[in-house]
Structure formats: structure tokens, C-alpha cells
């Protein structure tokens, strides 16, 4: 009874866009997601092709699903990013959402405790051909031999480039392509040249209030040197010369003023759009946003390029990667609810191309190979990422916590709060302590 009234009340609130009258004879499932709230702009948009950006596209996708499905209503529940603290508390309270978005790095924490439903059979029944999944996606959602999630994207770390400033710095070749470093020495030389010619730092980076930049960049630099820091999934190894070199590189970039400093995510995103630096090291999801920005007057006008993380160590072109995916949380679901959940996942699978317009890489081979995808702006430049994107080995537990700790320590050393050696030792101790106590 209480549940019913809560649902009804919530229904009243959501009425604005969703058309609650229809909801009565449909099965309702709750879908918890981040990506932000933008119903104001997209609340009634059902034509997904008209939506842009992560928030816009996922909102329009759900609207479209609700408009088309005769059996199911999806009730979106928008949560904080990344939202796992609250999801955890909510699962513990016994009332999880039916579906939740989840980073692939996190799935094993939940699946290993029996909190997620395996989906192999449902996918087979629904006609979802798991062989069409890209290797990265399939590995990302497979834990202990079972598929635990519908993958949504692969996202990686790359360089957003302000070509207008690059031109000014003389770092553009005859074909109009940016000239990028192929070694650490070249990196410093070009960055110095850039600074001299433009008066601006070469890099824009998100160094404040979050650890994502540090972890993702550091991991990438380790991958480039083929440093296998999780050879033993229960123990991290940062006491290698590779780790020391990579961290020293970051610290040098900082101490030589080759990056903007102290910017949080929002500040760095806007800083790049405002032309405060040449290279913004960030993720795939901003490609579409900046591509739109390049069509307007401003610092990026006709001068936006994107490229895979340049290989500055002679090892491999591998790069940090993760993926968003959708999990079905274990609870007492009726057959109708379970069917509805799979119906929604199938819908996302069918519409995966739309999501890839954000800049994320699609999770279906057939889409990656399609002309439709290849014709999207800049996608040819980053296609290699689908192969080179690398996640932590799936046997490593508590990956989000690990990345947090790693990022904190890398950040301390990069900003000079700690010595490189101290930070690496601390990161190692803290992570191994965490893993020793993790189930």
C-alpha cells in the first residue's frame, strides 16, 4: 500500500512529460541513471536525432521508449554521478531500482555478492546477439563467465585539440593536422614552443576536486610502457621504474607550468571552449559538445580536432578505458517486470548508434563498421580506441575505490604536495590494504 502511494505520488510529479494516464495498464520499471537532468530542454523530445549531449540523448531515448512501448513505462530516476554510495545504501535497504546504469569497472563488486541478475538467457531469448558486442564491451560486462549487464558504450581518454591555437604555435602540418609528440622529449619541446608562441599552457587538465584525470592519465602512461601493475589482481605494483617515470612526467608538466592548474571539471571544460590552452585531456563524451562549439563563433570556431592519446613511450598504444552499462538488480521481480527490463535493454541495444553520437564508442561491431558511424565527425581519428582501450583486469576488486586512491596519490605528487616516491609507496600501501580487506 505504501509502495503504491509512493509510486502514485512520484507519478504525479513526473506527469509533466511522461503522460501518466497511459502508465496505468503498463508495467512500470525504475531506471536509475546519472548523466544529469535536462527535462527542461528535452522533456518532451521523442525524436532522438534532435537531441545532443549525454543528458539530451539519454532523456530523448527514454522518452522515445515510453512513447513506443505498449507494455512498459520506464521511470527514470536521476542520481548523482557516480552515485554508487547511494546505490549501495539503497540496495542494502532492500529497495533497489530495477535497472541501474553502472560502470563496467564496478560490476564485479556487485555481481560477486549476488546483487545482480545474470542476463545470458534473457539476451538469447530477446534476440540480442552477444557476438555482435565489441571485445571491450563483452569483456567489460562478463564476470565469471556470465554476462551481467547490457553494455552501453566504451569511453576512453583522449586529447581534445584547439587547432586555432595549434596553428598559432606552429604545430600544424601541411595537411592541417595537429603535430603531436612521439616521445616525452618531444612533448616538452612542443609544449614549450606552444607556450612561447601563444602565451598559454599546452594542456588544460581537470586537477581539482576529482581524481579521474590523475588515474586515467597515469594508467594510460603505464599501459604505454607495458607496465603490468596488476599482474597479481590482489596486489598493485607501483614500485617500477615505469611508474616512477610516468609520475615524474606528470609532476614535471605541472612544475613547468605546462598545464592549467586548479581547475575543476566544469572550469576545465569551459576553459577549453574559451581557448585557454591547446590540449584538453579528457574523455570521449565531450566530442559532440565541442563539435557543436566549433560551429559557433568563439575560440574553437572551425578549429576543433580530437585524437587518440598520442603514444609518447615506445611500448603500446593502449589507453585507459571503461564503459557504461545497464544492470538488472536482484530483487523480487514479477515476470512482467523482468520482461519489461529486458525490453528496455533491447531498445538501448537497438539504438546504440544514437548514444555513440555523444562521442562514446559504440558497443556493437556492426555499428562501428557502419558508414553511419564512420561519417560522424572525428570518428575516424579515434576508431583505434575501440581496440586499444584497456580496463583493469576484471579479477581486481573494488576498482572504483582503487582508482580513487590512486588518483589522490598521483595528484599529490603531480602538484608537489608529496614526493613521487612517497606517493607511489602510499598508493601501493593504501590499495593493497584495501584489497587485503576486500571480499
Amino acid at each position: 500500500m505504501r509502495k503504491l502511494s509512493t509510486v502514485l505520488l512520484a507519478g504525479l510529479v513526473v506527469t509533466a512529460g511522461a503522460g501518466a494516464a497511459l502508465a496505468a495498464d503498463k508495467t512500470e520499471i525504475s531506471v536509475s541513471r546519472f548523466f544529469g537532468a535536462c527535462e527542461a530542454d528535452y522533456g518532451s523530445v521523442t525524436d532522438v536525432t534532435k537531441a545532443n549531449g549525454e543528458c539530451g540523448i539519454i532523456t530523448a531515448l527514454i522518452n522515445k521508449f515510453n512513447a513506443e512501448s505498449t507494455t512498459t513505462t520506464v521511470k527514470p530516476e536521476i542520481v548523482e554521478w557516480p552515485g554508487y554510495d547511494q546505490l549501495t545504501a539503497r540496495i542494502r535497504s532492500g529497495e533497489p531500482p530495477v535497472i541501474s546504469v553502472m560502470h563496467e569497472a564496478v560490476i564485479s563488486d556487485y555481481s560477486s555478492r549476488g546483487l545482480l541478475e545474470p542476463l545470458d538467457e534473457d539476451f538469447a531469448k530477446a534476440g540480442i546477439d552477444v557476438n555482435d558486442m565489441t571485445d571491450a564491451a563483452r569483456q567489460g560486462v562478463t564476470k565469471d563467465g556470465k554476462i551481467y549487464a547490457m553494455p552501453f558504450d566504451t569511453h576512453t581518454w583522449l586529447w581534445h585539440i584547439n587547432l586555432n591555437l595549434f596553428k598559432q604555435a606552429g604545430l600544424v602540418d601541411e595537411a592541417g593536422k595537429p603535430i603531436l609528440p612521439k616521445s616525452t622529449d618531444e612533448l616538452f619541446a612542443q609544449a614549450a614552443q606552444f607556450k612561447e608562441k601563444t602565451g598559454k599552457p599546452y594542456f588544460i587538465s581537470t586537477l581539482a576536486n576529482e581524481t579521474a584525470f590523475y588515474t586515467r592519465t597515469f594508467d594510460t602512461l603505464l599501459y604505454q610502457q607495458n607496465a603490468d601493475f596488476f599482474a597479481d589482481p590482489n596486489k598493485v605494483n607501483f614500485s617500477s621504474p615505469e611508474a616512477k617515470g610516468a609520475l615524474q612526467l606528470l609532476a614535471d608538466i605541472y612544475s613547468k607550468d605546462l598545464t592549467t592548474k586548479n581547475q575543476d571539471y566544469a572550469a576545465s571544460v569551459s576553459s577549453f571552449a574559451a581557448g585557454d590552452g591547446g590540449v584538453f585531456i579528457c574523455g570521449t563524451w565531450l566530442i559532440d559538445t565541442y563539435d557543436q562549439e566549433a560551429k559557433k563563433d568563439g575560440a574553437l570556431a572551425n578549429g576543433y580536432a580530437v585524437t587518440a592519446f598520442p603514444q609518447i613511450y615506445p611500448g603500446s598504444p593502449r589507453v585507459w578505458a571503461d564503459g557504461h552499462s545497464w544492470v538488472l538488480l536482484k530483487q523480487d521481480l514479477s515476470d512482467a517486470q523482468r520482461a519489461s527490463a529486458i525490453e528496455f535493454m533491447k531498445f538501448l541495444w537497438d539504438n546504440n548508434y544514437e548514444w555513440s553520437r555523444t562521442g562514446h564508442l559504440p558497443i556493437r561491431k556492426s555499428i562501428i563498421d557502419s558508414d553511419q558511424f564512420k561519417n560522424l565527425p572525428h570518428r575516424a581519428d579515434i576508431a583505434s580506441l575501440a581496440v586499444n582501450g584497456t580496463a583493469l583486469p576484471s579479477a581486481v576488486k573494488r576498482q572504483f575505490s582503487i582508482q580513487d586512491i590512486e588518483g589522490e596519490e598521483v595528484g599529490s605528487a603531480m602538484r608537489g604536495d608529496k614526493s613521487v616516491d612517497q606517493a607511489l609507496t602510499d598508493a601501493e600501501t593504501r590499495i593493497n590494504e584495501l584489497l587485503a580487506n576486500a571480499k
Partner: protein
Amino acid sequence: MTDVTLSPGKATAAVKRPTGASIGPRWSNALFVAPYLAFYLALLVYPLFKGIWMSMLQSDMFDDTSKFAGLANYYRLFNDKVFIGSVWNTIWFVVMTVPAFVAIGLLLALALNRSDRTSATLRAIFFGTSVLSVTIVTIIWKMMYMPGNGAIAGIMRFFGMEPLAFTTTASLALPAIAITTVWWIIGLPMMLFLAALQQIPGELYEAAALDNASRWRSFWSITMPSIRRTLLVVVIYEIVAQFQLFGQALLLTQGGPNNASRPIVLFIYEQGFRSWNLGYAAAASEILFIIMAVAALAQFFASRKRVEE
């Protein structure tokens, strides 16, 4: 019903009254405190002991196989740099904010202890921020501290200075949270001091004025002694309140950079809901409890002594 023997006058009165209330002890009187006691026992005492028990378990949020670990969690805590850091951060935060609350609160109260309209408006302004919730306060201050787009950065650049990175410089993060906190809830100490000041009889000041005492002297010899009790109330209240720092740190700095602004409560929250180490989180809770109990007791005895003096 009961014998009433307190005083002769009342005894005669009691005889007239067979059903009314009596003065002596009666078990039914416990009904007045019973409802509260039920909540107190169920939601404070029981969780407290459950927490102590949990702190001796090695337990995971979603795994029922928790096993008894004795004091292992505590041993681990005392060797955990992050936890020790969070203890010092919390203490440092209390040391920064409590004197600020006392000094600024008292100064504002002294200046605004008047009955004109301007003072009333000013009082409203300084107290007004207290009614905002912590999330709103942190949004507001993020907009102040943001290095690129923040208001303070803009002002500093206007004066030709290099903007400070408040939330990302290890030495500035906790002070930034302290400033935010003082801005947020300075109203309460100010009001408490105002109330105390208004209790001081005007004659005292009149006498002082006749003696030609300076403002400074009458402050030390009249005002301060008269508000000593309130001063203590404010100090104790703020110590207890600021030890519980959580929301501002979580929302402004996430405890960073380099663990420079992680308070104990944030550590507990992270261990519990991010790392799922319930036993470990519970152990950290008990340490917080012990520190605060000691602080409260110390304050209690100090206040007794001073008031008795």
C-alpha cells in the same frame, strides 16, 4: 493513595483529595519519560552498543559471513595514515572555527546590540544564512572558490593578483571549508551573545560611565564577566558541532587534496558506503565517539570550575 508528608500545610490539603496528583514518587509518573526513553533506547543506546559490537567484526555490507576480529579494526585504524590524518584535520578544523565563531559572533553582537532598524536588518542578514542547507551553501561557495570562474578569483585578478586555488591547495582546503562554515552559521553564536548582552543591567554601565571608564575597560570588567556563561555555552556547542563536520567537506573538496580536508565523519561514510567495510567504519565511529565524549567531559569540568570561581 500515597502518604504525603512533605509539609504540614500540604498534608492537610492532600487529605481532601483522593484522586488528584500526588507529590511523592509513583511508578505511573514514569509514563512521562517513557515515550522518550523508548526512542532513546531504540535509536541511540541500542545503535551505540550495536556499533561497538560491529566494530569488533570483520564485516562487509553485503556479506553475512562477518567474523569476530577482536580489536583488529582498531589496530588497523591506528596504522591508517588516512584515518590519523582525518583525526588531525577534524581537530584542526575545530581549532580554526571555534575561536572564529566566538570572536566574530561576539564582535557582531556588541556592534548590533541596539534597537534601531539598521541593526535589526544587519542582524537579519548575519543570521539569515543559517537557514540555508549545506548543499546550497556549498554551491554558493563553490562559485566563490572556483579557480577559473569563481568570484574570488575574479576579484584577485582585478587587483592583479594570481588567483588562489582554495579547494585544491592542501594548506587552503580546510581553511576554505572553515570560512564557508563560519559564513554559514555565525548567526547562532551572534544571537546567543546578543541575548546575553541584553541581560546585563544598564546600571552597571552607567556606573562605569560615571567613573569615566573607557569602553575597553567596561568591556573587560563588566561585559565579559556577565556573559561568561554564554561564552561557555557557545564554546561547548561549537566544539561539539564542528567535530561533526561532514557535508561541507564532502561537497566542496571530497576530503582532498592529499587528504588535507577529510574529516572523521567523511572517513566513516567512505569506509561504510564506498568501501563497504562496516566493521572498520564502526570502529572509526567509536573513536569519534570517544574523542567527543572526552572533549565534552573536559569542557564540563572546566565550566564547573570556572563558574564556581
